[in-house]
């Protein structure tokens, strides 16, 4: 049997710790505001539809289930169709809110504004990271540097006993085994986070491959469809190595790599490390940011997710649900769910800034 149950148990313990840690500073500000909103929320009813990124789909789903649990008549429908579709459908007005791993550029924001007749807002709601998983369980904890990861995916490093890997792992008995790099075959935010990381850390990668939701992979690498496809490819091919959503790796208990961050620390993809990474990020007022150069205790391959909404054009019932739901996702209950599933919630300061954005929704109606 899989050992995910044990891991989940450990995780819940960790999340409890994390909660007490950030709970203190959180109590006074937001909770009061949320309280009044929730009172208003009892009269809410209707359906809102959102679509977009699959990266946070797991936590969104549980958030929605928990949120709806005590509100009859309210339905939040979120479909993880991919952030590209999410953005286009948001701009195309066919959904109420969108979600994307990549922030909207000024150009896209302008297009959205032109389509709706009022500006759009975007705000992050959760952080997540991308883990490097192996076929071989004995490799759990193997240390990799961004240069080595880039080397593996550009097929310069093709064997686990390569000197570059050996140098980082003096204590490991490395197998003589060809590496088979697995990537996502569908375009995805996970690929974006992964390639963005290599793109910013490794110049040679930037020259050859760049970043994106899909990139031109080197030959003799193989694609898998979705996180499931990648993990199947990893488990079916000896020597398989691939990148998957951390929440996914956690649930399946996949053996994963430690990755060296900007401060030279080898960090395993844990929740604390993701939370730490999110605190490293320098977030501008426009919320147009990516997580780069993570140091300290932060796990370096991390990304966030943006929610897209408009400042006008909703009927009151819809706007109330959107605002109430996303405000709710900033509460401790929501944070606990996120942690349980392997996502890092926002820090207290960021939550305040995000709440301000949420308040702008439909404000120009």
């Amino acid at each position: 049997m899989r050992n995910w149950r044990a891991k989940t148990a450990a995780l819940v313990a960790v999340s409890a710790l994390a909660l007490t840690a950030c709970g203190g500073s959180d109590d006074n500000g937001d909770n009061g505001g949320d309280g009044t909103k929730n009172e208003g929320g009892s009269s809410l009813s209707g359906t809102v539809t959102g679509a977009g990124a699959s990266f946070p789909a797991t936590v969104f789903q549980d958030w929605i289930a928990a949120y709806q649990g005590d509100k009859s008549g309210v339905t939040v429908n979120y479909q993880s169709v991919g952030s590209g579709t999410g953005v286009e459908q948001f701009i195309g007005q066919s959904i109420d809110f969108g979600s994307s791993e990549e922030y909207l550029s000024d150009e896209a924001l302008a297009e959205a504004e032109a389509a709706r007749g009022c500006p759009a807002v975007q705000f992050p709601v959760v952080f997540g990271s991308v883990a490097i998983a192996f076929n071989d369980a004995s490799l759990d904890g193997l240390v990799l540097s961004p240069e080595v990861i880039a080397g593996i995916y550009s097929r310069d490093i093709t064997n686990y006993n390569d000197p570059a890997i050996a140098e980082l792992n003096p204590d490991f008995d490395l197998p003589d085994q060809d590496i088979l790099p697995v990537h996502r075959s569908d375009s995805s935010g996970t690929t974006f986070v992964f390639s963005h990381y290599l793109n910013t850390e490794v110049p040679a990668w930037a020259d050859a491959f760049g970043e994106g939701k899909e990139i031109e992979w080197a030959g003799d690498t193989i694609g898998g469809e979705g996180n499931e496809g990648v993990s199947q490819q990893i488990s079916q091919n000896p020597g398989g190595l691939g990148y998957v959503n951390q929440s996914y790796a956690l649930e399946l208990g996949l053996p994963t790599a430690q990755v060296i961050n900007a401060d030279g620390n080898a960090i395993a993809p844990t929740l604390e490390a993701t939370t730490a990474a999110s605190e490293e990020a320098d977030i501008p007022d426009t919320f147009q940011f990516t997580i780069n150069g993570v140091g300290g205790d932060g796990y370096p391959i991390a990304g966030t997710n943006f929610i897209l909404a408009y400042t006008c054009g909703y009927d009151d019932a819809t706007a109330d649900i959107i605002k109430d739901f996303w405000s709710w996702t900033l509460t401790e209950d929501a944070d606990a769910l996120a942690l349980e599933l392997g996502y890092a919630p926002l820090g207290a300061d960021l939550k305040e800034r995000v709440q301000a954005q949420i308040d702008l929704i439909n404000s120009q109606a």
Partner: protein
Amino acid sequence: MSATLSRQRKRIADPAFRWFVTLAGASVFVILAGMVIRTTNDAWPIFQYQGFFSFLTGDQWLAGSSRTDSDFTGTYGAWPFIYGTLVTALIAIVIALPLALCVAFYINQLAPKRLRNPLSYSVEMLAAVPSIIFGMWGFFWLLPNVLRPFLEWLESTFGWINLAGWKPFEGPVFGSSYLAAGIVLAIMILPIITAIVREVIAVNPVDQQHAAYALGATRFEVMRKVVLPSSFSGIVAASMLGLGRAVGETVAVMMLIGSTKSWDGSLLSAGDSMAAHIAARFGEATPETTKALMAIGVVLFLFTMIINIGARLLVWRIGRVSGDAAV
């Protein structure tokens, strides 16, 4: 009074019905034209930007991110996907067609009478099984348990084959590959082709079969020389339907072909197909990419047209020679 009224109503009802069914018939053109115009229109800027010919033959595909109809940044060579579609569909039909013929003939001619109905029911049922089920089964069960060992054996036994530079079974073996996708497609279209072929040979006049038997023909000769020739157009139609399904199959191929944007002569290497690429990239597509995916859709549509026209010509030509009454 009421008699004239009803006659009048009849006089109106008859032409009205005629117009209704004529319009319904014409609706096929309207829907088809609508689809072609709409998608071609969306894809047009990409064809203009890339050039239709280089879109078909180019083997590099880099999605761009322009939000308008101009300033495209990508490179669009769809050859790897066209190639993947061709190769997988060909593998599928090469495996499935002879098997389907055998199975249809077995059910119709050899199987014990009381088994014939249950067998043809089962075939029909399997022909209607959603492709997502074939995809799930192929990926989660067949690939690791059967296909991988089989492909590895192929590689180790026939990997040396080199036909003027073409090495059909060259390694490495990843599992997901043209051949894996082709085999699962074959399993998927087998009941589809069988169901139609069985139906076609079932309506073959028993009289003629008996005439051949009475001349001392063996069972095999009756199938070969009486049933097969006069079922030819039906068999072609069935194959084309199977081929069409194989060419257009999305989910099952997406799960099994390995999705790389390069193409390779070895059947054991991973590739991508047109339909699978559209489906896999649609979710994250920028407006520019969406147009490029529409362009693949248009090419895919042209393929179906060519297959159908080809089938027509084939039926017509060979039908004349074999005296097939159904032509």
